[in-house]
């Protein structure tokens, strides 16, 4: 595994080039590219606001700006997770020519897919920062948690991405299964709601490794407090295991790619 990681490092410029290609192609028409980056986050935020409004009506309480901010903060990373898994799932089958014709570490494809989505994520987050500035969430020391949480999220996405890309190369229906999970995943993830709304049963929701990360973002940006450290560690360990086992699985399957695609 050490050798394989070293080789991946040797090919880092290729990772950069493939990412650049994916971004460049998507942003060829710059307006469309920008819209593409914020379209899904905006839709998720809007549906989140509708759901939050419904809670407020049922609870006979006014809809607070903090709730809207929390939905927005969690919706944008969720959009990133969904699109990076979706793109990396198709990244090998979509680059058939390169997989069968030229040798290089193929995990570059799912990784580049995640990185290209990360670019979209930053574009959307830039828009989000403007919004947060207007509703005056404020700047605190807790914002330093953001890079940590994001890094964990990227690790998790790359891990899942490498696994689904390799498996979907062998089984063509995997991408439909992944699509179903991505569509309904939002109901099992605290995006429209907060885990604390569930009281004690909330911990079952936190078993979803994405949940502590999203809750953590909301905690440190809106509520000005540190994320729950235990649950964060759970997510981190889960992400590391996914990343490394995904890498090993991918490398194990890689020699058969060219003849099975």
């Amino acid at each position: 595994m050490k050798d394989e990681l070293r080789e991946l490092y040797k090919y880092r410029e290729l990772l950069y080039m493939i990412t650049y290609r994916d971004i460049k192609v998507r942003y060829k028409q710059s307006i469309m590219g920008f819209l593409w980056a914020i379209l899904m986050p905006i839709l998720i935020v809007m549906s989140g606001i509708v759901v939050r409004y419904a809670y407020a009506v049922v609870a006979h309480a006014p809809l607070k700006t903090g709730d809207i901010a929390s939905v927005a903060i969690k919706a944008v990373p969720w959009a990133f997770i969904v699109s990076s898994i979706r793109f990396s799932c198709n990244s090998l089958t979509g680059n058939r020519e390169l997989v069968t014709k030229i040798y290089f570490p193929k995990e570059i494809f799912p990784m580049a897919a995640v990185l290209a989505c990360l670019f979209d994520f930053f574009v959307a987050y830039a828009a989000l920062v403007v919004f947060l500035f207007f509703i005056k969430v404020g700047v605190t020391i807790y914002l330093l948690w953001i890079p940590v949480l994001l890094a964990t999220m990227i690790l998790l996405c790359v891990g899942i991405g490498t696994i689904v890309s390799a498996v979907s190369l062998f089984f063509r229906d995997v991408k439909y299964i992944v699509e179903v999970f991505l569509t309904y995943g939002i109901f099992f993830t605290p995006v429209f709601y907060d885990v604390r709304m569930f009281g004690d049963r909330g911990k079952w929701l936190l078993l979803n490794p994405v949940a502590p990360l999203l809750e953590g973002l909301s905690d440190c940006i809106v509520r000005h407090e540190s994320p729950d450290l235990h649950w964060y560690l759970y997510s981190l360990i889960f992400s590391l295991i996914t990343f490394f086992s995904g890498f090993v699985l991918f490398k194990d399957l890689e020699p058969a790619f060219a003849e099975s695609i």
Partner: protein
Amino acid sequence: MSDVALRMEHIYKKFRKGEIYNSLRDFLPAMTGKMFQGQELNATDKREFWALQDISFEVKRGESLGIIGRNGAGKSTALKILSRIMKPTKGRMIVNGRLSALIEVTAGFHPDLTGMENIFLHGTILGMNKREIQSKLDQIIAFSGLDEFIDTPVKRYSSGMFARLGFSVAAHVNADVLVVDEVLSVGDYVFQQRCMERIRSVIQAGTTVLFVSHNLKSVTEICQRAILLEHGKIVTIDSTDAVIREYLSAGDSPINPGEKKQVNISKVTVRDRVGEQSTFESGQKAWVDVEVTALEAVEKMAVVIWFKDETQYLIFHTSTERLGFAPFSLQPGGIYRCTFELDLNIAHGTFHLVTQVYRYDIQKSYDRRDPAATIFIGSTTAVGGAVNCFPRLIESETVAASTESCKV
């Protein structure tokens, strides 16, 4: 470093013939069926075949080796194993130094990116770093001849331009071992010549080259040694000429496999005024006698003869029918004889005579001898190429540059 650039030791590669389960929907029921009922997996996925069997060879540093063989002989599989795209089922392989493959040279291109962007993308895919590409950028663009289109998205390129750019990038990768697979079929004649030039200069620079092509002419031009592959096994490793001869004679035997021979070319002689001869002087007259014996009743046949040069390039072709003779028909045991008179206006070299019995209206060959004879042409005039145009220099003049014209 040792002087071995590349070595394959007892390489085997197995492929599955039948369709394997490529969806979970099919795979999971099959697996559960196997687990719970002890039911065997579908018989189709047991049908395997060996694409390569016991392939061992060695290429020295700076040597160029050709691989020839029919479609499906395992050439591309061998190259894919060499370039590490596929893993051998068994066996060991050593490559000393950086290996670069000129296979499908446009695989890394993205249609929406410009020529320039694609140079960087494709160059990186082939293992160059940014600085390396930057330093060779001018060379690459000049080689492709696509200077004015370099900022155009490659989707607007013609397929020839596309391939030219791909080859240009791939050909500028600094490699210790270069693998070339049938890429020279792209581009026009001029570009093909340039590619051959490039490969030759790469060889001269000391790069080891592995060359796969159906174009035997370029194999002879580039490679000192060659391998003949057949059904995944090495038939011969020898000098290129010997291997090509073997390849062609092996392919000769049955014209219509599975069919019984109906006529037989029973005799072919090439002679000069005196008698049977194989060495001629350029421009000399030669006679070719062909005798055809029928084993069954066959109608409307013609005798066709042609000359090929050493690289199997067809240089001359004629037949009894083309020369205005009526087709002949034979009863079993019947014999047909004909004689062609030829002026051998061929340049100096070795040429192979091929004879064939052919029926023009249904386009069927009955028998062929390839080669029926080999002749050697000597020439007193020093000419190159395939034909002798008997050149004479009748005027020659040197004009000194005048001072006035220099001013312009």
